[in-house]
């Protein structure tokens, strides 16, 4: 190990050391001033984000004997993850005070989970993928149960823990089988071994291992049929944690999934670069993407609770991104995940504003009646978020879907793009229902929250403006974001 190795995982190092140090610092912070811990965590997340932004156009490097890879994809994802986490911290300051959750350990746990995500996007070895997924998951199990002794939160935590650990069991056994078949767990070596030794491409042990690893990762991104845990966990967890899980976890797990898929790209001859998916894997990924889009959107239609609807929405969007994975275009997928993350975060700003001002957190549609007229700013932000999630120009969601479906069509999966467009049209029904409730329905009982209180919290409003501005700016100037991804040399997910 040398100093250059450390540079390849610099954001991860900042987050991990920052998280552990904050755990100690928090001991000295008096109970009444726990928001100080939050601000310190905010600074750490921002510093890691800035370090990643400074490195994004550098050249692709491997570190720690090929265990991690630093490239534009990884740093781009780092920036996205750190910005999302910083915004979640801003949102949680008032929310946690209002809900009686202002405990210092929240912020170190958030940073540690974030460090796991940062490691996951840099992973170039199946073992690192496993370790990173665990590092991001274990603090999240605790965070989901953070609202104890509220039973819903405890139930969400236990369900998330049991399903998550079950999925890791599949993942690690899959890694063991792949190691047994090929003698390596490094994705680059695996790719080379598959090219050198065609007999390996039909090895039963390797196929079984790949299948198990895919099951483990598909659990994490909540793709159908491995999605059943997500709605319960998203609904039961504190809303700030849900916002973090729905956006950051998804982005990190997707990049890890794409690297694994790219490691197996030599399984069968595929389309030319930059497509990094084997033809043997493509039908399976496309099928799961199609089912996920259909099930996610159709089930979201039937929900009576905005938070739960957003959970199904996150499943549906995992389907879209998975369609991008099937096409093999990592740039389109990452762009889409960024667009999705900011739109979802903007929607959660409204949920968190409601949760911060009311005695009982109620996210049923009825509870939102007339909110858009009482607090026009929140109404506009929600409208922007919903338009972006549907994919209406000039929002980020439109450009994201445009790039995504273009990549899908270019890789001869036109039927998948057709399903994507049709389900997007369907999704307008439940996204627009939120806006209808917000602007066109009168509340049945006198609303609990004062309009002034809804827009009172300065950090929350900053988060609101930043996520709303990101939705618009990514939509209007997509090339600025794409430049981050393609600014450096031509990158490969696995080399």
């Amino acid at each position: 190990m040398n100093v250059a190795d450390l540079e390849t995982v610099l954001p991860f190092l900042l987050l991990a050391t920052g998280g552990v140090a904050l755990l100690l610092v928090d001991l000295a912070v008096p109970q009444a001033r726990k928001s100080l811990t939050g601000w310190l965590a905010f600074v750490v997340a921002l510093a890691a984000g800035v370090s990643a932004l400074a490195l994004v156009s550098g050249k692709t490097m491997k570190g720690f004997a090929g265990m991690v890879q630093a490239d534009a994809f990884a740093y781009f994802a780092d920036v996205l993850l750190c910005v999302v986490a910083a915004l979640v911290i801003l949102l949680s300051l008032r929310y946690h005070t209002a809900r009686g959750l202002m405990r210092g350990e929240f912020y170190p746990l958030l940073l540690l989970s974030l460090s796991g995500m940062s490691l996951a996007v840099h992973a170039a070895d199946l073992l690192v993928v496993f370790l990173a997924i665990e590092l991001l998951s274990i603090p999240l199990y605790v965070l989901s149960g953070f609202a104890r002794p509220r039973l819903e939160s405890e139930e969400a935590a236990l369900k998330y823990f049991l399903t998550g650990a079950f999925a890791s069991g599949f993942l690690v056994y899959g890694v063991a089988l792949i190691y047994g078949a090929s003698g390596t767990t490094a994705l680059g070596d695996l790719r080379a071994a598959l090219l050198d030794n065609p007999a390996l491409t039909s090895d039963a042990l390797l196929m079984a291992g790949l299948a198990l690893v895919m099951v483990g990762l598909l659990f994490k991104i909540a793709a159908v049929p491995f999605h059943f845990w997500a709605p319960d966990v998203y609904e039961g967890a504190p809303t700030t944690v849900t916002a973090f899980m729905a956006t950051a976890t998804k982005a990190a797990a997707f990049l890890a999934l794409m690297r694994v898929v790219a490691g197996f790209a030599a399984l069968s001859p595929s389309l030319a670069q930059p497509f990094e998916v084997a033809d043997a894997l493509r039908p399976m990924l496309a099928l799961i993407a199609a089912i996920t889009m259909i099930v996610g959107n159709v089930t979201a239609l039937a929900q009576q609770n905005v938070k739960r609807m957003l959970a199904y929405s996150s499943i549906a969007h995992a389907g879209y991104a998975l369609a991008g994975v099937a096409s093999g275009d990592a740039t389109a997928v990452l762009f889409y995940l960024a667009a999705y993350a900011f739109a979802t975060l903007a929607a959660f700003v409204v949920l968190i504003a409601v949760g911060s001002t009311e005695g009982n957190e109620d996210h049923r549609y009825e509870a939102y009646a007339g909110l858009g007229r009482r607090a026009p700013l929140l109404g506009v932000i929600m409208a922007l978020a919903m338009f972006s999630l549907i994919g209406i120009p000039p929002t980020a969601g439109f450009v994201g879907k445009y790039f995504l479906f273009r990549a899908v069509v270019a890789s001869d999966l036109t039927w998948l793009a057709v399903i994507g467009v049709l389900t997007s049209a369907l999704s307008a029904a439940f996204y627009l229902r939120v806006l209808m409730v917000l602007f066109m329905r009168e509340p049945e009982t006198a609303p609990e929250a004062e309009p002034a209180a809804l827009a009172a919290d300065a950090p929350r409003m900053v988060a609101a403006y930043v996520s709303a501005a990101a939705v618009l700016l990514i939509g209007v100037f997509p090339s600025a974001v794409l430049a981050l991804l393609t600014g450096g040399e031509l990158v490969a997910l696995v080399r």
Partner: protein
Amino acid sequence: MEPTSFVVFLSSVLFVIGALGVLLRRNALMIFMSIELMLNAANLAFVAFAQRWAQLAGQVFVFFVMTVAAAEVAVGLALIVTIFRTKRSTSVDELAQLRG
């Protein structure tokens, strides 16, 4: 059959027992134990394959997996204890607060 194949076969049996345990058991603690069995099946497979490839790497992986399993135990048992305090039960069938 080479000797490592027997060990790999044993590990696959353990893995299937673990996976079935997760699906069939209703007690959170038993489900958790079954998950641990799955992780240990992977450890056994790693050791056997390290033998096959005459590498040390496979044996080192076991330590990583064991560490992760220990971290999972700490968090998992804490969660189960917390929910037992609230509900006086560790049956996953009674976790029905959240419904679609």
